[in-house]
């Protein structure tokens, strides 16, 4: 029997690979090892051979390269058709996608055409033998994610279908680049455009390098809905500026319009591992915690002494942030300047 395959869809935007794809390769490598399988990268685009080559630094055994000018821009139909064809032919055991705009557009489409199971925004993936309804299954993919407003953590399995698919947010899995790449084995797959592909055309694209770098920030000052207003977030910017950090927000704060979504920390935002995380007016729902609980030190500031954020904090201050933060800034400046 051939070895089980783990595939990672390598996302690229204007020829630049997305970090999340390499993070997934590092996780994919472990999953493949745990079931005695092999790891393949699927690279689709135009002039993207270098990206395929780079994936061999992340433990890839073989790369499928689909290179065509018509594939320069991501479009659902041609990309999905390519994956659909490859998946039906080779039947990989696992296919992973970044939970990006492209991944969340593509993965469900492919899962539908191949009738595969798909779990979105997983916070962990594991291989395990499972007994489900008194039937033993070997080496299933456990797809772990918070669900139901973060009140439960669900482990999802797809026991009865050949292909198990999952999407994972950027930053959730840790990237590990090997010093020595695997032997490069690239298989070029031909692509023929069809008329149907052209029902949708990309007219123009605008991208700006984000100035916000939450993943690389040593200190993060994050605000929640409890801060009450966009204006009150200014205080967090003052604090971040004083102590050399970035400002982030919980989903509730983003939804309320207090802070832009590119600064969202949590299951559906960015996962961060800073030296210090100061959570202000954040209650601490599991989805938020999923994105920050690995911070080295956590300080929680909240008016509600029962707020769950205190459970995972190292230091807790019960009180009004509007009163505490200016004191913090003043003390910091006094002691460190």
């Amino acid at each position, binding site marked *: 029997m051939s070895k089980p395959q783990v595939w990672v869809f390598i996302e690229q935007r204007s020829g630049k690979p*997305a970090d999340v794809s390499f993070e997934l390769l590092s996780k994919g490598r472990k999953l493949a090892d745990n079931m005695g399988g092999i790891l393949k990268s699927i690279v689709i685009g135009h002039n993207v051979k270098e990206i395929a080559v780079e994936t061999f630094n992340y433990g890839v055994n073989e790369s499928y390269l689909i290179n065509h000018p018509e594939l320069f821009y991501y479009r659902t139909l041609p990309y999905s058709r390519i994956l659909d064809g490859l998946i039906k032919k080779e039947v990989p055991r696992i296919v992973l996608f970044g939970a990006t705009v492209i991944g969340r557009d593509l993965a*469900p489409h492919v899962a539908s055409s191949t009738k595969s199971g798909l779990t979105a*925004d997983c916070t962990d993936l594991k291989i395990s033998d*499972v007994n489900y309804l008194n039937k033993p299954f070997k080496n299933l993919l456990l797809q772990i994610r918070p669900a139901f407003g*973060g009140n439960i953590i669900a482990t999802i399995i797809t026991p009865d279908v050949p292909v198990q698919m999952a999407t994972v947010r950027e930053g959730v899995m840790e990237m590990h680049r090997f010093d020595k790449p695997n032997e490069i084995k690239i298989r070029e797959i031909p692509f023929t455009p069809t008329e149907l592909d052209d029902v949708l055309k990309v007219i123009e694209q605008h991208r700006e390098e984000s100035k916000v770098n939450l993943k690389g920030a040593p200190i993060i000052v994050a605000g929640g809905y409890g801060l009450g207003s966009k204006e009150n977030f200014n205080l967090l910017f003052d604090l971040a500026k004083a102590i050399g950090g970035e400002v982030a927000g919980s989903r509730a704060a983003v939804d309320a319009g207090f802070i832009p979504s590119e600064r969202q920390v949590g299951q559906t935002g960015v996962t961060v591992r800073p030296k210090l995380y100061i959570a202000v007016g954040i209650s601490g729902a599991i989805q938020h915690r999923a994105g920050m609980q690995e911070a080295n030190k956590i300080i*929680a500031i909240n008016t509600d002494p029962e707020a769950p954020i205190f459970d995972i904090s190292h230091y807790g201050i019960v009180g009004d942030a509007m*009163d*505490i933060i200016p*004191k913090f800034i003043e003390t910091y400046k006094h002691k460190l300047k």
Partner: protein
Amino acid sequence: MYNSIVLVKQVPDTANISGKVMKDDGTVNRAKLPAIFNHEDKIALEFALQVKDKFGGKVSAVTMGPPRASDILRECLYMGADAVYCVTDRKFAGADTLATSYVLSEAIKKIGNYDIIFGGRQAIDGDTAQVGPQTAEKLGIPQITYAEEILELKDRKIKVKRKIDGGFEIVECQLPVLITVLKGAADPRPFSSKKLMAYKGAKSLADLEKMVEGNSLLYIDNLVHEYKERKLFIETLTTDDIDVDPERCGVKGSPTKVHKVESVVLAGGNHIQIEPTKDGISKLVDSLIEDRIF
């Protein structure tokens, strides 16, 4: 003239979990969560109504869920939908996104006559964003997800601005197309008071069946006929009405299974309590300096 079908969902209000819905063991009592109209779906309906306002056409809203999901269909009528459909059947229960999109796509085929299908990008109970693309795939039509704005609609082509990672793009697509819209893309219009008065008595089949149960003088067929005549009938679509393979519906048709569920119990943890005073904060900054954080 362009006809739209809007996919809407009733969801538990997971964003506003208060002490009232907590059980003694610290877990959430799901039955006590209020059910609300998924916000992004309301924006999808607003998009459809704007298309109708500008170009004419018909707006139909469809939901799949338990009978009580017809609550949000009434809200669709209050906002201006022309027809509403509740896709409901015990056989549909427990569906994951694949089984849901299968049933929805068959319901849409039954309703027919559409140019654009709108839906919210995702529903707050699962946040998967999968049902839109999977429905488009099953219908064999193109999809535009993460839509922020319709820029142009003419000659059966639509130009849409959509979010991408780090920016936006403009795409042009031939109709028919399925579009999922992003929060913030539009403000859903308020209920029209005239429509509210007109439709507050709109009833689904389940509502009418309940009325018949307690009254031997009423006959369900007559009642349905009467409500249809008065345009107050919320159309119900069951396995009798749409052509579905039961093996592909509900739990049976769902490849994803919940293997294990762990409740998140909110228990007290061990943290160092800092007084919110100048003195307390001074000590905190000292320990952070000692820990080489600063």
